[in-house]
């Protein structure tokens, strides 16, 4: 603490990724200027070296954020940056959220590097935008003020729009970027209008102040809250605010899709959870039917639409809508166990989903994606290892015992049952059963169809490393869901429950 009472260590994760983003931007532009006079092979080699260097810098800054959040979590820190002025706070919840988001971003960085090289996409801007988006996520996760929350969400979204359109020469990528931008900024405007109405009704923007002053009988406050929830539902990709998801996920470059599907969703869930716990605990009964409806709609529509998809990226987009629906179960149940199970689900989702997208990336031929379901025919004979891990991730996403996906769903459904949400759990279990059909179609295609004539592509070392790490976590947590955290006395599930046990 310095003379003015600021706790600078609270800024550590945000500062690490923000500085990393600026460093990547400047280094790329300073180091790539001299490549003009080189011969083409030497130039390609120097571009590859530069790309690797930038990926290393990006992952270094994400690693600092990860370690910082873990240390703060172990120390049980609960500190505001400025104790006199509620703006930015690190506590168990935001520490955990920063850890999960930085893990997802770290894995996305290493899934990106080879893919970007194959497409000749400019690397500096890519990593800088990715880190800027992560900066915004961290700010949103630590915010305890609606204005700062909005800033964080915007700083997360605007780089994500640009990333979706990053494959500039492809029409579909442009379309994805434009759709994401138009609908996303529309959602942001609704979100901001909700904040304005809440401020008009209560005169407060900080969560603690809102909790004291919000009045459920005030139409103005409730209208503001409704608009706020629409903004969240958009970022979470809940039905009926999901229309943009399939197009954006399909059109965006696959590493970007992986990043958006994992990190943006995790951030939105954590931010919503913090808002509910700290600003709106008295409105639980009022919000429950809304979350119930969103959950049922997302589970039903997501799973049913995923069945008819012929494109794996589009199928995963609809499946991510369904997963967002499952997550809503915890917000309906409203017990610390349910919230703990929801965070466990998010942690599992990071590894399952990044793994699934990672296989799609690793199978991408030079300049052409392997995304139609027919492209997976006979992969097992050409690339048995990739086929095996893809099967693992598909089973995990469906919720097969022995993978982390089973425990994620098990704990979530169990806590919902304990909260007497029987009808909702039945819908969710039926949805999971349906999901087996479309998830298992990928292994069926890989193992039971004849191979096409294409020559096998080679996945790069860093993609394989990411896939191995994801597969390892999916299996390890599948057998030991309450594994002891390093440096921590309690098991993972207990820690997760404790972070929300307020």
């Amino acid at each position, binding site marked *: 603490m310095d*003379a*003015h009472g*600021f706790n600078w260590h609270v800024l550590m994760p945000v500062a690490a990724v*923000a500085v990393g983003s*600026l460093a990547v*931007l*400047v280094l790329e*532009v*300073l180091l790539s*200027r001299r490549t003009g006079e080189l011969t083409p092979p030497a130039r390609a080699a120097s571009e590859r070296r530069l790309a690797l260097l930038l990926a290393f810098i990006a992952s270094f800054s994400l690693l600092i954020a990860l370690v910082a959040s873990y240390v703060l979590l172990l120390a049980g820190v609960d500190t505001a940056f400025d104790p006199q002025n509620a703006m930015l706070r690190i506590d168990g919840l935001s520490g955990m959220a920063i850890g999960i988001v930085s893990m997802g971003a770290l894995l996305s960085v290493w899934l990106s590097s080879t893919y970007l090289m194959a497409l000749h996409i400019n690397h500096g801007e890519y990593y800088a935008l990715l880190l800027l988006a992560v900066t915004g996520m961290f700010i949103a996760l630590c915010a305890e003020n609606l204005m700062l929350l909005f800033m964080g969400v915007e700083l997360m979204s605007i780089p994500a729009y640009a990333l979706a359109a990053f494959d500039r020469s492809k029409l579909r990528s442009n379309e994805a970027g434009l759709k994401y931008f138009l609908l996303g900024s529309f959602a942001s405007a609704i979100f901001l209008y909700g904040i304005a109405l809440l401020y008009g009704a209560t005169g407060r923007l900080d969560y603690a102040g809102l909790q004291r002053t919000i009045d459920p009988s005030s139409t103005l406050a409730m209208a503001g809250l409704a608009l706020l929830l629409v903004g969240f539902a958009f970022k979470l990709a809940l039905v009926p605010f999901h229309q943009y998801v399939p197009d954006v996920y399909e059109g965006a470059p696959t590493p970007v899709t992986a990043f958006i599907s994992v990190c943006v969703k995790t951030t939105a869930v954590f931010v919503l959870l913090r808002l509910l716990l700290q600003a709106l605990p008295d409105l639980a009964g009022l919000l429950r039917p809304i979350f119930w409806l969103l959950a049922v709609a997302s589970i039903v529509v997501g799973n049913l639409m995923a069945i008819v998809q012929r494109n794996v990226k589009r199928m995963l987009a609809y499946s991510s809508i369904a997963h967002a629906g499952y997550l809503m179960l915890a917000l309906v149940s409203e017990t610390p166990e349910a919230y703990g199970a929801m965070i466990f689900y998010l942690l599992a989702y990071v590894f399952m989903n990044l793994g699934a997208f990672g296989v799609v990336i690793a199978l991408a031929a030079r300049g052409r994606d392997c995304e139609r379901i027919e492209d997976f025919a006979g992969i097992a004979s050409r690339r048995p290892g990739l086929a095996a891990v893809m099967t693992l991730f598909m089973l995990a996403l469906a919720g097969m015992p022995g993978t982390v996906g089973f425990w994620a769903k098990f704990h979530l459904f169990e806590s919902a049952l304990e909260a007497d949400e029987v009808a909702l759990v039945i819908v969710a279990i039926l949805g999971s059963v349906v999901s087996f059909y479309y998830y298992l179609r990928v292994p069926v295609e890989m193992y039971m169809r004849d191979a096409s004539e294409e020559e096998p592509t080679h996945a790069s070392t860093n993609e394989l490393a990411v896939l191995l790490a994801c597969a390892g976590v999916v299996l390890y947590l599948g057998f030991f869901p309450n594994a002891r955290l390093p440096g921590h006395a309690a098991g993972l599930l207990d820690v997760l429950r404790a972070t929300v046990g307020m």
Partner: protein
Amino acid sequence: MAEYAGVLIIFALAVLLTGGMLAIQLRLAPKRILQEKLEPFECGESPLVAPRRRYGVKFYLVAILFIVFDVEASYFYPWGVVFRELGAPALVAIGIFTVPLVVGLLYEWCKGALEW
């Protein structure tokens, strides 16, 4: 309301001054009407052309860069007015605000965005 009288007077003076100048130049200025002068001003572009043609993206780039630094300046002014009272924390805050902008300037310079 008496304390707002000054604002009202300034407002009236502004209307009088601008209106007066416009009226004087209408009376006194020589008028030679040409085709080019009657066209709406479009920053050097011809206003009436078929759409769907290539146009210089440089105007757009310069406008964006201008807005970035315009907004930056608009944050510097209020800080400059009160920085003695706010002291060191405000200095650090404006530093944190400025450094990314300077890095951005460096980036656009090296990328050649400032070459016309």
